[in-house]
């Protein structure tokens, strides 16, 4: 029950932070970190996959509604919601019967960083290629995705490092 409430609050807070504050940053004209995916990162590990997928879709669609980019964020979010389980299995070994929420404490610092980096990169590259919707200017698109990924990773790790267990 507590976890449900926690996740609802996290969902609303992250969406508002993203659309009201971060989407207005546009630092240097193209730095626009997308940290709303922290919601997907922080879902309990043993959450049914179909439910993760639907949550990812709803999250992406909410962001899309506010930024007039219908479908782009939904696509990228569903993608990382789908591969999240696999990435967790790749970097960590969760004990049988436990259902932790991913963080530095439950995953260990190295594993959590790897987990975040892989998912952010996949999400951002998907997002920026879909946004451009063309393979022209591919170099520019990839550069933007790379730089934004770094900023997003830094912010997400920063937020997570302040959290207590």
């Amino acid at each position, binding site marked *: 029950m507590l976890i449900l409430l926690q996740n609802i609050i996290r969902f609303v807070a992250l969406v508002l932070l993203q659309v009201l504050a971060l989407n207005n940053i546009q630092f240097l004209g193209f730095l626009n970190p997308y940290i709303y995916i922290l919601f997907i990162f922080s879902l309990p590990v043993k959450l049914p996959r179909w439910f993760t997928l*639907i949550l990812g879709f709803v999250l992406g669609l909410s962001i899309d509604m506010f930024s007039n980019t*219908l*479908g782009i964020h*939904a*696509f990228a979010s*569903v993608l990382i919601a*789908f591969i999240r389980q696999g990435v967790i299995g790749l970097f960590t070994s969760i004990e049988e019967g436990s259902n932790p929420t991913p963080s530095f404490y439950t995953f260990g610092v190295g594993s959590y960083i790897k987990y975040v980096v892989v998912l952010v990169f996949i999400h951002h590259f998907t997002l920026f290629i879909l946004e451009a919707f063309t393979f022209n200017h591919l170099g520019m698109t990839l550069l933007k995705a790379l730089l934004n990924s770094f900023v997003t990773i830094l912010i997400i790790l920063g937020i997570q490092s302040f959290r207590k267990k």
Partner: protein
Amino acid sequence: MRTLFNFLIQYSVVFLFLLLEIISFTLIVNNQGYQKSVFLSSSNRVAAEMYEISNTVVEFFKLRAANENLSEENTAFKNQLIILQNKLNTLTKNTVRDTIHFRIPPEMEYQFISAKVINNSTNKLQNYITLNKGIVDGIKVDMGVISDEGVVGIIKTVSNRFSVVIPVLNPKILINCKFVRNNYIGTLVWDGNDYRFANLTDIARHVEFKLGDSLVTSGFTNTFPAGIPVGTIEDFNIKESDAYYKIKVKLAVNFRTLSHVKVIDYLNYKEQRYLEKASEN
């Protein structure tokens, strides 16, 4: 059947994943049309109201910048107002004077067609100006062209919607002009050097004038009515052996900044030409 069922259950997540991705992708592709996206975009009510609330907060912090912008704009407008008022004052005086000059009987002898300069050069030896009006607007070859400042030139060629003017800044035309002070007549020619100055010839030794004297059109040609400003005397000299002055005239029109002109339609042109030709024979 049982295996198929098992298969479906086993891969239900993958199917859900594919379904959601297909939905997203369809949304992306269909998002080209604006109407389709209205429901799920920031123009829907929830998103719009959220943005409204956030704007009221953000606006407060932008007030200072907005104020500065407004005051800057205000000053610019005030300056413009003063300039326009000055122009209006001078123009009213001019119009009163001009109408006297233009109203050579019979009345309404001249009409004006306003036109815009769409191509202009001042740096060549033979300059031309292109106007955005042509035959359909009533422009004919040999009509005079003036601006608010003074004489510009004469129409050389006309097409349906455009016309080309030979301006004063072209040695091919000679403008017949006279001193306001004593009505002595001379011919204005451009020497091809400076777009601000031209030379006045045919002023004989005995004519009296001073620096700064005004020149206006003589009215003896069919193209320009009398009294349109041409320029002022900038400099003059005469050698002992010469019979005529060399006079440098500062042109009234700034050809560099020329934008709007009036083409003069002399309504009695045909009749006058006909009469003159008849008497020559």
